[in-house]
């Protein structure tokens, strides 16, 4: 680049340092130090009141045997297994519907995106009301249609799926935008060529659109996984982790250990374990989907 061949002037060196010094201090204090300290906390026992003490591998051992932690991990598996496919299907369907000349196109797009701009706390409070067993909108509709009301958030079988559907509803507009961007790159000529071959709409979708959108699908899978592992405010507001611990998320468990039990070492251990889990899951997803892409 042209800039690299210029001699670095002393005033530029000084300005550079001055302008980036606040950020460097910030980065060291609020980003690098917490990462290092997170690892240190794994080997510590600390209630924030008395002095921290060395705990060796106690936190790790506890984590490996902690049924509540593994319950939370299993819950996240259930959540993601419902959330990710649902998210892909809904976002893809809406993006395909939007990807043509339409009246009020901006309005449709904006309405799908509306829940994305609303705070998760509000969405949780709102859906708590929608899911309410006796006066909730959803059960009112079911009863009107002649079905029995469902105790969505109090039945251990339906609670996590209900939360997964809600989170999908909240985020789908975001993923619609990703798919729409991908659809713009599918050349018209490809569409026409395969149409001339006599392919049905389903064949066009299955053998042309879907494979060409694989990069977007990989992005959607990665982002909804990372996002999904952050699940916290929804169970916090709607179920408190119940019924029978079926909606306890890992972040909620981490929060409870820090905030209610004052176990900083253990909470940090959960945080590190979660970060590793996210890294592994995303890496495996990318590897599997990357192989599909290569074919």
């Amino acid at each position, binding site marked *: 680049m042209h800039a690299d061949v210029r001699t670095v002037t002393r005033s530029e060196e000084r300005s550079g340092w001055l302008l980036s010094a606040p950020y460097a201090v910030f980065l060291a204090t*609020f980003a690098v130090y917490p990462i290092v300290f997170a690892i240190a906390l794994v080997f510590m026992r600390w209630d924030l009141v008395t002095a921290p003490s060395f705990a060796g591998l106690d936190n790790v051992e506890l984590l490996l045997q902690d049924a509540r932690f593994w319950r939370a991990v299993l819950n996240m598996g259930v959540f993601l297994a419902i959330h990710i496919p649902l998210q892909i299907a809904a976002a893809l369907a809406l993006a395909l519907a939007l990807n043509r000349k339409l009246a009020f196109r901006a309005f449709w797009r904006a309405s799908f995106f509306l829940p994305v701009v609303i705070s998760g706390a509000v969405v949780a409070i709102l859906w708590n009301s929608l899911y309410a067993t006796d006066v909730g909108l959803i059960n009112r509709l079911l009863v009107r249609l002649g079905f029995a009301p469902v105790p969505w958030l109090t039945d251990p079988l339906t609670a996590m799926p209900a939360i997964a559907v809600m989170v999908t509803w909240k985020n789908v507009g975001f993923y619609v935008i990703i798919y729409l961007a991908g659809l713009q790159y599918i050349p018209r000529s490809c569409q026409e060529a395969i149409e001339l071959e006599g392919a049905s709409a389903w064949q066009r979708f299955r053998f042309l659109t879907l494979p060409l959108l694989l990069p977007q699908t990989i992005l959607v899978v990665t982002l909804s996984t990372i996002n999904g592992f952050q699940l916290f405010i929804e169970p916090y507001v709607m179920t408190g982790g119940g019924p029978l611990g079926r909606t306890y998320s890992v972040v909620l468990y981490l929060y409870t250990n820090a905030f209610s039990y004052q176990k900083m070492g253990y909470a940090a251990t959960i945080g590190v374990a979660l970060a590793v889990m996210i890294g592994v899951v995303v890496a495996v997803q990318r590897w599997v989907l990357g192989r599909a892409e290569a074919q």
Partner: protein
Amino acid sequence: MTALRRTALYVVLAVAALTFIYPFLWMVSTTLKPPFEVGTLSLIPRDVTLDNYRTMWTRAPFGRALLNSALVATTITTAVLVLGSMTAYAMARLHFRGRPLLNVVTLAVLLVPGQLTLIPLYTLIVRLGWVDTYAALIVPYLFNATAILMLRQFFLQIPQSLVDSARMDGMGEMRILFTIIWPLARPVLATVAIFTFMGSWNEVLWPLLVVRDQQVMTLPQLLTVFALGGGAGSMGVSLASAMVLVLPVVIAYGFLQRYFIESMAGSGIKG
């Protein structure tokens, strides 16, 4: 496309749009209904009442929380724009030792999930004595790595001749940044401003950790605590408190939807 299929498409779109909009309409309507009407399906209340709003406003300091939220989100957004621009300018246009390191660390930090640093950050706030202060809500967000990378990307595209000629005229780096480059960078600045403000406005986990005093709580936290603590007492009151948080956002979104979508979708993809 045949007329029949076209009609079918619009029906599908309308049903989908309704799925996203109707719950919010139902929310508004529920807040305006007296308790005995809450269970009805009708959107239009038979007796319109503001009781739910009066109740929530007197039971918890929502006015104060609204001001807290506005203060915190505005301060953070201003800092991310001004300080972030200074940093990004240095990282894009100035040559100094340490710049490559700063770039690498910024990228590395973005790869680390927030849950990893949550507890160490919390213990840091406790040791600094910042629990129940605005500093706890603001300082950890003064810089934003995604914003810095976006701004840096834009600043890299500005022709060197423009910067050089401004230097010839004797302008300092700060003046070059804020009087020559900022006016050119308006679209990026708007993008950064929206996702930063919205991120702060909607954040709830961090305040739940570092604030326990109702007077310092931001809106999302106060309404969560209010709804959970049973302070609301009824669905109408609880949803009325949520309206305080939603209304400003929906109004702004109505006017600036295109920018909101570009900003919030863009930051997620890059960040």
